[in-house]
């Protein structure tokens, strides 16, 4: 599998629309982390009209709770967590300009609809490839809620972070098209393409 290209954050509409489900790309630039607890707090801040820890416009959120940083390293192991748990909050963030998400696992139809409406992309990092991914993180600092430990919001500078486009801004979903190609019915015949 060849890399389809490189993308740089923050993401423009043009960059997002150029990505297609199944493309393998390398991301460089600034990304923000957030998982369950941070999403709840972001949603509460929006509801309560309080300022957000970072401007969502054009940004990419990585669903990750890294392991602690050992001495001499930039970051601990940092693979993706299951994205579906963030689904209830995601359309709200997309409406505020979030352009990309990095995680693993399927998304709800509400999220996919909102991605198409807002021109956003969902990217997959390989679950469990956490030590490898940590190599592409060149800087990391806490942005908000340090008391949440690994669930805090971190700002990461990444270089050539390897991802696959899972769901593109046209709503095409690799989790549906990929497995369908390799499905075999119980009699062992290949499934429909």
């Amino acid at each position, binding site marked *: 599998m060849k890399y389809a290209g490189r993308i740089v954050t923050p993401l423009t509409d043009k960059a997002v629309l150029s990505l297609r489900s199944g493309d393998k790309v390398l991301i460089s630039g600034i990304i923000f982390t957030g998982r369950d607890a941070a999403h709840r707090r972001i949603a509460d801040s929006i509801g309560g009209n309080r300022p957000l820890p970072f401007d969502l416009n054009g940004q990419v959120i990585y669903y990750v709770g890294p*392991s602690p*940083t050992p001495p001499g390293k930039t970051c601990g192991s940092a693979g993706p967590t299951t994205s579906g748990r963030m689904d209830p909050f995601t359309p709200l963030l997309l409406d505020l300009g979030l352009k990309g998400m990095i995680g693993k696992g399927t998304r709800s139809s509400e999220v996919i609809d909102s991605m198409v409406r807002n021109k956003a992309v969902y990217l997959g990092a390989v679950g469990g490839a*956490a030590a490898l991914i940590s190599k592409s993180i060149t800087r990391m600092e806490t942005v908000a809620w340090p008391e949440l430990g690994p669930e805090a919001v971190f700002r990461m500078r990444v270089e050539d972070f390897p991802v696959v486009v899972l769901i593109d801004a046209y709503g095409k979903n690799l989790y549906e098209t990929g*497995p369908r190609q390799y499905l075999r019915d119980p009699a062992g015949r290949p*499934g429909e393409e």
Partner: protein
Amino acid sequence: MKVPREIDLSLVTEAVKGLLIKANISIGQDIYNALVHARDRVEESPVGKYVLDQIIRNHDIARSDQMPICQDTGMAVVFTDIGQEVVFRGGNLVQAINSGVEEAYREGFFRRSVVADPLFDRKNTGTNTPAVIHTRIVPGDRMTLLVTPKGFGSENMSALKMFTPAEGPEKVRDFIKETVAAAGPNPCPPTIVGVGIGGTVEAAAIMAKRATLYPIGRRNTDSRYAALEIESLAAVNDLGIGPGGLGGRVTCLDVHIDFAPGHIAGTPVVVNICCHASRHAEVTI
């Protein structure tokens, strides 16, 4: 009369700590080999090969940089078989095990993922303790410790079903397949599936967890169960979920089944899924 063998509990703490550090950093050779075989010989999907390649490279990096394989360093599950002639000295066994967990997670820079209350405040204990401890008393004067840091992406996808006596092995195979199908990409495929059949609900669950830790390629000694393992593995791999759930042939590296005598009126079946980061280590002291 046989003299009891004394084991100092500091030895248990050291053993648990060492095993957890090892397991979190370095994958077993059987799993590593199975991943390489899957990438080079079995997988047809280009994206599937790519995912397998990243997983294999991740294992190499984790080992050489002494980094955790996965950021979810799990909940520590400790299986301990204690010889009935063993006497412990120097404290309390449960505390000794938990001290080993706490030290491993601190010194290894592993993520602490345990909350004290599962339903209400969900406050992190900060130590990754308590461990889940399963104890068996066995003959002899030795003690075996088998530890596995269990990640929850895959644990969350596990399932229990009560079968009626009339339901046969095909029904069990279908249940295994349905459970893996419903899990889709979430448990980080390729997975290792452990199945516990018979006994009571909790007995089946413990069997299933233990079964996830058997070496790749190990078959049940009862040929009927061995056949069911092989059939279930084929059925699961027909799903096409593939590495990372992105489509491919290799959804699962192996299915291991264990069984126990059961009640005339019913059969619990537990399917416990473990991700490709199937981390475990064992020692006898």
